[in-house]
């Protein structure tokens, strides 16, 4: 079984970090993983995205033209990637910023009001963890506890250990919102 997710949004919404945490957790969970960021000019203020592939087999292509899943944090990302998602795929969408509904009817949509939940966790900056929590519940690709552990380790290694409890809360709130 192979899952591939594109996590996309504005620069600053934390989509690159969310993808790294998911990839790290996937590896911790015993899966083969790849993480591929967009690193072009779009990183500078425009939209950013990364692609994570999680598989029980060695990963072939790290670049995905038919992702099984999409986490869209803003409208440009939904516009760009919605048509690519595989049939019966999963789309987690940031309802706080995206007013339109999905055009696709052959995917499983999860519309999450991400921003109030991030505020409830302690900061609007935790929207990425809310969305990741929702994605984990929607797909079951990696257990929540494994992701919490990966997140805590990565933040601590980056000298940001004090933000771990808030991000744990955000993951939980996202998880429960689905």
């Amino acid at each position, binding site marked *: 079984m192979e899952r591939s997710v594109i996590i996309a949004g504005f620069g600053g919404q934390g989509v690159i970090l969310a993808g790294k945490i998911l990839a790290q957790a996937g590896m911790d969970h015993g899966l083969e993983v790849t*993480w591929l960021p967009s690193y072009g000019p779009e990183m500078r203020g425009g939209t950013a995205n990364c692609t994570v592939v999680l598989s029980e087999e060695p990963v072939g292509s790290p670049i995905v033209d038919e992702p099984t899943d999409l986490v869209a944090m803003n409208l440009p990302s939904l516009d760009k990637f919605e048509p690519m998602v595989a049939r019966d795929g999963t789309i987690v969408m940031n309802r706080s910023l995206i007013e339109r509904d999905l055009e696709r009817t052959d995917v499983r949509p999860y519309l999450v009001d991400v921003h109030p939940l991030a505020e409830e966790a302690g900061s609007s900056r935790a929207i990425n963890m809310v969305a990741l929590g929702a994605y984990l519940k929607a797909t079951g690709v990696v257990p929540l506890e494994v992701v919490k552990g990966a997140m805590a380790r990565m933040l601590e290694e980056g000298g940001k250990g004090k933000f771990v409890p808030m991000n744990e809360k955000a993951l939980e709130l996202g998880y429960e919102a689905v």
Partner: protein
Amino acid sequence: MGERKLMRGNEVIAEAAIRAGCECYFAYPITPQAELLEHMARNMPRLGRTFVQAESEIGAINMLYGAAAAGVRAMTSSSSPGISLKQEGISYIAGSNLPAVIVNIMRGGPGLGDIAPAQGDYFQATKGGGHGDYRMIVLGPSTVPEAGELTILAFDLADKYRVPVMILADGMLGQMMEPVELPDPVDPATLPKKDWALTGAKGRDPNIILSFDLDPEVLKQMNLVLQEKYRKIEDNEARYEEYQTDDADIVIAAYGTVARIAKTVVRRARAEGIKLGLFRPITLWPFPYEPLRELASRVKTVLTVEMSAGQMWEDVRLAVAERAETPFYGEMGGVVTTPKKILSEVRKYAR
């Protein structure tokens, strides 16, 4: 082997170089290989080794020339336009019979190009971007773990043959992360002795390292020594991987990240009944002509796929020599090919 860690290709190449005993690293920053330089900047001084952010790529390659002449394991890295600037130095290093490692994390060209992944520097790397009759071993990693393994191999081959060795990867491999298990650091005592190096002539005759002689007969002899070495490398060092080629009708020839994308294509094509395989050169020079020729005599089609206008394609056609049809599909300018695009090309040649 150490623990399994999630690391970027750029960081893995840097860390593997450190573990291979790289004592000196010289470079000038450029996207998309910046993390390689950053990893060296953080770690080389801490280990008591030499890190220099040079004033230019030309400065860096000539520092590499000097360090190699002094007999230490040394490396430089850059991306396409920066590698172009290093060509004169690479020719001097080759002409002087020196071991050195050069990393090219390719981006779109020609000219200033862009910063997206590309494979447009194959000709430059494998056919001689600098002047004169020289060769350089060129290694094309396809995955992040392999980038680490081939970096260590690069230092070993450079020392073994006293030649420059290039790691030729693209921006995607440099930027992406994948789990790796890094090897234990090599014990410097186990490295080959370099009695030719410039280490100070006190108590011995001086060593002289030059790529120069005004007497054509002498320079011819120096060239013959190089050529003899290159034949030995061709005979012993060609490396490649075949994937699902046993019963294949069609084979994709691809290297680097395109080859791993093609592995996904092989699985998808087989799911729809197309007998597709993959031939992946690991050494781009020496190119594995003989194994590809043998494979070509058993298949109908060898489809070359590159992120270039068709550079390795020329070596594929030399190898296949009309034993099979040899179409080409490529993307340029930093546009990355995808499994869907390759599969639609493959379908054109399926019966």
